[in-house]
């Protein structure tokens, strides 16, 4: 693999007062790849992204975009990277047109016609002061600025927050367009709207307490996680105890039905259970949101599989 476009090694940040926000985070995202970062509120997603962007200095470890530390990188290097932050601060007195004019001096690959085109498609009033736009429109203006910069790395922190379903779909379609272009762009985006990830993320990282506890190809996560349902028949002897289903992450018992979310390495890991007379085993797929809830819901351990890119 060529050098990753987005890279973090042992990245850590403790805020004054001892709050550990990020704790030994490792990450590597290649070009042309969409990496989705999910995690509960306070998991450290925003802090990690701000360190990658060079807006916050880590206490330990390294963060690099396109091979450079953004904290010290020269302007030309930073202009190859775009970022949409959770709490976007755009200059409220400027119009989108003026903002674009301003940004075009900073970004070498600034694409003016594309910016106009996006404004039209997103329905952003071109000559109204940004401060007078709605929250959703301001968000879309920030997204426009990031995309029109034609960056090689795009960091999106909760870009879909405050967008309606149609605007969210437009955002996804724009990301798809960016990916279809020849020049290659690495996209990292954090979200708690997991359904958005399932359409476009190639890799998914699950963050918890400042670390990435699971990082895997989305399709691998999907094909290796199943809901297994075991139905105990009437013919079983009294006092029968079902052995633990191999790979169980979490299980519940309801009458004669045992349901478990299971990490499946091979189909044959259920053979032993299947062979018990009077027991029926069904296997169902599990959506990403359910996987996430199973991992982090009440009583869950929050550990699943660790595979780095």
């Amino acid at each position, binding site marked *: 693999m060529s050098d990753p476009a987005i890279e973090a090694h042992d990245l850590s940040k403790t805020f004054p007062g001892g709050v550990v926000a990020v704790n030994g985070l490792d990450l590597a995202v290649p070009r*042309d790849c969409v990496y989705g970062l999910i995690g509960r509120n306070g998991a450290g997603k925003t802090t990690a992204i701000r360190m990658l962007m060079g807006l916050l200095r880590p206490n330990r470890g390294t963060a690099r975009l396109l091979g450079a530390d953004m904290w010290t990188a020269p302007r030309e290097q930073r202009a190859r990277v775009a970022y949409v932050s959770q709490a976007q601060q755009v200059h409220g007195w400027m119009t989108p047109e003026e903002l674009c004019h301003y940004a075009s001096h900073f970004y070498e690959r600034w694409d003016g016609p594309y910016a106009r085109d996006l404004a039209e498609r997103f329905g952003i009033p071109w000559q109204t002061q940004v401060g007078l736009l709605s929250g959703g429109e301001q968000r879309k203006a920030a997204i426009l600025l990031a995309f029109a910069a034609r960056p090689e790395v795009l960091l999106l922190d909760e870009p879909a927050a405050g967008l309606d379903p149609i605007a969210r779909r437009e955002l996804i379609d724009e990301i798809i367009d960016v*990916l279809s272009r020849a020049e290659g762009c690495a996209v990292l985006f954090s979200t708690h709207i997991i*359904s958005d990830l399932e*359409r476009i993320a190639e890799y998914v990282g699950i963050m918890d307490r400042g670390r990435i506890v699971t990082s895997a190809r989305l399709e691998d996560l999907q094909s290796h996680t199943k809901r297994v349902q075991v*139905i105990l028949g009437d013919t079983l002897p009294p006092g029968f105890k079902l052995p633990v289903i191999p790979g169980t992450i979490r299980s519940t018992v309801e009458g004669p039905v045992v349901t478990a979310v299971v990490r499946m390495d091979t189909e044959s890991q259920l053979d032993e259970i299947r062979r018990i007379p009077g027991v029926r085993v069904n296997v169902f797929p599990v959506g*990403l949101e*359910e996987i996430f809830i199973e991992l982090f819901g009440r009583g869950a351990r929050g550990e699943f599989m660790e595979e780095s890119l």
Partner: protein
Amino acid sequence: MLHLQIDPHSGVPVYRQMMDQVKYYVASGALRAGDLLPSIRELARALSVNPTTVVKAYNELQHEGVIEMKHGKGAFVAEAAEGMSAGELEKALRHLVRRLAVEAAQMGAAPELVLRVVAEELESLNSERSSD
């Protein structure tokens, strides 16, 4: 244009869903040998999915002999694909029927009842079609 229905939340990888549906269309005769499939970009855009997912589906379908990718011309349904259609049709059907069987068993429905309802549904679908 090929119409695929993707449910990204089902837990079944999206590329798998795409493969299953293309195979189903070939098996049912809706797609025939030589038919052109949408370009990767078109399909990614139409379904709002990552282009790499479409690439993966097309590569796997090519590997299984269902489609052929001709450089610069696009993806076509392979000549050999129609021959395997009966087996693929059964496979696709079995997948659906297994779900029905599981759910029916959970409701405690007797097998005879399930078979009767399925037969009746097929019957009414047929009569709807013939009255069109």
